[in-house]
């Protein structure tokens, strides 16, 4: 069983990560772009 402090830190990291990834996906390019398929 880990201590309360490390649990809290891990939780903050988790929230931060999810928010960051969310905003990254919002403003990021997106890897898969299917618009090229339109040319077929």
């Amino acid at each position, binding site marked *: 069983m880990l201590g309360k402090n490390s649990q809290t830190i891990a939780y903050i990291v*988790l929230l931060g990560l*999810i928010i960051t*990834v969310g905003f*990254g*996906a919002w403003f*990021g390019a*997106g*890897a*898969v772009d*299917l618009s090229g398929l339109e040319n077929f």
Partner: protein
Amino acid sequence: MAKRFGGDHSPKGPVNAPAPSRPFAGRAVQPSRLRVTLIYLAATPLLLAAMTKMMGGNAAAMLANLLGFALIVGGAGLIGEGMKAETAFNARKLARPPAIPRKLFGAIAIGLGVGVATIMGWGLGLVNTAIFSAIGAGAALITFGMDPMRKKGMSGVDEFQLNRVATVIETAEDTVRQMIDAAARIPDRVLEGRIDALAVAAREMFRVVEDDPRDLASARKFMTVYLTGARDATVQYADLSRRGGNAAARADFEALIGDLERSFEAQREKLLLDNRSDLNVEIEVLRERLQREGVNAQ
């Protein structure tokens, strides 16, 4: 002098009605759901991202963001269920681990969700994705802990017998829950309180049986026949009271619930007494043996 207010239509009935002696007995502390709810909130930018990609005409990235959102929210929900299962596990003295390790699966789902959103929504490379994914799953595991994986209170006693006891108690707990659910449909706070008291008495008896599985034989009728009868009567009375109710039926039902509660308590006392007489026999046998073998302190 201050006097408790109460009338026929007060939530707890008239002032002279017997108040439940221990209203919180046998109730487990429910873990806070705040941490799980905040994860839902933290994942909402992914929904906005999905909307932006949709408006930008990038269907694949939109799907990826939605999938990431669903995995994270689903994982958090699973973790919430796991916390509930863990509370139930902790409340019991004899318990089998939950069939599905929900907290573990939830953490993995969160890691996958972060990964999908990173690689396909954000467009980062494989290495970054792997690191983010691992951090997500690991942080979720550290925050919420692992599920109980081992059987509890089941060592040194006959495995078969213990499994039988665990099965009977799980079924009986289900019956109690169904009875409480049915009681919630009865528009009568006094009766609801009585049924809660019956549930407490029944659960206290379960704990006694968990302590000493040999008690199962004499408690079995209570845990199956009487409890099922009480649940069926509660369901039927709830249906009747929905249709208007009937004073005679209410009085009969209240008497039945009271009788059952008392008999559950009496049976529990009896089981405890049996345990004590077992202990007395054990002590006597040991002391006699000590005397016979001359180990007595001189």
